[in-house]
C-alpha cells in the first residue's frame, strides 16, 4: 500500500526535477528522461500491476506538465513498460551494456512514435527537429541508465523495507 501512496509524489518530484535541474545540467539542450528509464526499470523489476500503474502515472503526469498532445507520453510509457515486461523473463536485464543499449533504443522509439503521430495526424514532418532532440537524448539516457538503474534499485529496496515494517 505504501508503494501506491508514495508513487504519485515520487513521480511528480522526478518529473519536476527532470524538467528543471537536469535540464540545467545540459544547458536546456539535451533532456535527461529519467522518467522513461524508471519505466524501463519497472518493466524489468516490477510486476504488471505496480509497474503498469507507475508507467501510466509517469506518462500521464508528463503529459499534464509537458507536451501538447494529451495521452502521447502515457501511451508511449505504457507501451515501453509492456515491451520491457515481456522481455524481462527472456533476457537478463542486469548487464550494463544491455541496459545502455536498451535505454538508447527506447528513447529513439519514443521519438519515432512522436514523429509518426505528427506525420499521420497533422501531416507535418518533424524528423529534423526530433533527430536533433532525441539522438543526443538517447545517448545521454544510454550512458546514465546503469547508474539510474542502481539508484532505482536502492529506492525499491527502501520501499519494500517500508512495506515490510
Amino acid at each position, binding site marked *: 500500500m505504501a508503494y501506491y501512496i508514495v508513487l504519485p509524489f515520487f513521480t511528480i518530484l522526478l518529473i*519536476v526535477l527532470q524538467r528543471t535541474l537536469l535540464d*540545467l545540467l545540459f544547458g536546456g539542450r539535451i533532456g535527461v528522461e529519467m522518467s522513461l528509464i524508471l519505466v524501463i526499470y519497472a518493466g524489468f523489476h516490477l510486476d504488471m500491476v505496480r509497474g503498469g500503474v507507475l508507467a501510466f502515472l509517469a506518462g500521464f503526469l508528463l503529459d499534464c506538465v*509537458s507536451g*501538447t498532445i494529451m495521452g502521447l507520453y502515457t501511451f508511449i510509457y505504457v507501451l515501453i513498460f509492456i515491451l520491457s515486461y515481456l522481455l524481462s523473463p527472456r533476457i537478463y536485464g542486469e548487464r550494463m551494456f544491455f541496459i545502455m543499449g536498451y535505454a538508447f533504443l527506447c528513447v529513439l522509439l519514443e521519438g519515432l512514435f512522436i514523429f509518426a503521430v505528427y506525420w499521420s495526424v497533422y501531416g507535418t514532418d518533424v524528423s529534423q527537429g526530433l533527430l536533433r*532532440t532525441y539522438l543526443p537524448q538517447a545517448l545521454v539516457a544510454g550512458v546514465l541508465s546503469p547508474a539510474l538503474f542502481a539508484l532505482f534499485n536502492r529506492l525499491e529496496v527502501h520501499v519494500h523495507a517500508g512495506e515490510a515494517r
Partner: protein
Amino acid sequence: MFKKYLAVIIAFILIAVSLIILSQSLRRPGSPGVVKKLVFEVTAPVERTINSGVGSVGGAWRQYLFLVGLEEENRELRKKIAALQGEVNTYREMSLEGSRLKKILALEDSTIYPTIAARVVGNEGSSPFRTIMINKGSTDGVKEGLPVISPEGVVGRVIESSWNYSKILLVTDYNSNIDALVQGSRAQGILQGGGHRLLRLKYVQRTEEVKAGEAVITSGIGGAFPKGLMLGTVVRADKKDPGLFQTIEVVTSVDFSKIEEVLVLQTEKE
C-alpha cells in the same frame, strides 16, 4: 484461472485507457480536465521554486569552478571578488528586470486590448514540444486561445489554463500555425513553427516578391491574433522548389530562451 491472465488483462486495460486519452485529445484538443488542472497547480509552484533557486545555485557553481585551481594566497581575494560580483549581479539583475518591466509597461500602454502581465515560471527546454508556463490562470482572466506577446513580438497563445497557471504554445512549436503577412510585399501565408527559432511561412504564391530582411506580422485573419503584431523577419525566400508556392524561412523576433515576462492580450469581448 483469473490470476493466470491478470497481467494480460491489466496490460490490455492500460493500453486501452491510454489510447482513449490520446484519441480524445487528438479529436478534441480543448480545455484541460480537473485532474490536469490539479497536476498543474501542484507542479508549477515546485518548478517555480526550483527554477528561481537554480539561478543562484548555478551562479555559485560557476563561482566554485572559477575558484578551483587558483593559488592559495589569492583565495581570500577571489572570494571577496566573488562576493562583490554576486552583489553586482544582483543589482544588475534588478536593473535589467526594471528595464524589462518598463518595456512591458510601455507595451501595455500601446495596446488597445486589456492585458494581463505574467511571469514565465516553467520552460520546456529540451523537449520536442515548445511550451512555457506562466503564473497567471483562469482566476486572473486568462482563457484558452488568448494571444501572448512580449515587447519583441508574438510569443504564442494560451492552450491550457488552470486556476493560477497557464500553458503557452510558442510560435516555434510544430503545432503552431498563425495567419501572417509580409509587411513590405503584403504577401500572405501561414507561419508554422519548426521546433527552433526558424519558422516556415507556407502557402505564399511564387508570384509574390518576398525579400530577406522583410518583417513578418500577424494578418488578423482567423481572429486569434490582432493585426500588426511582430512575428519575425524573413531570412530566406527562394523559388527553387517546384510547385505553386515558394519556400520562405522566418526567424522569430522573440528569443524564447531569454523570455521572462509576457503580456496576455484579452482580445475576447465580454
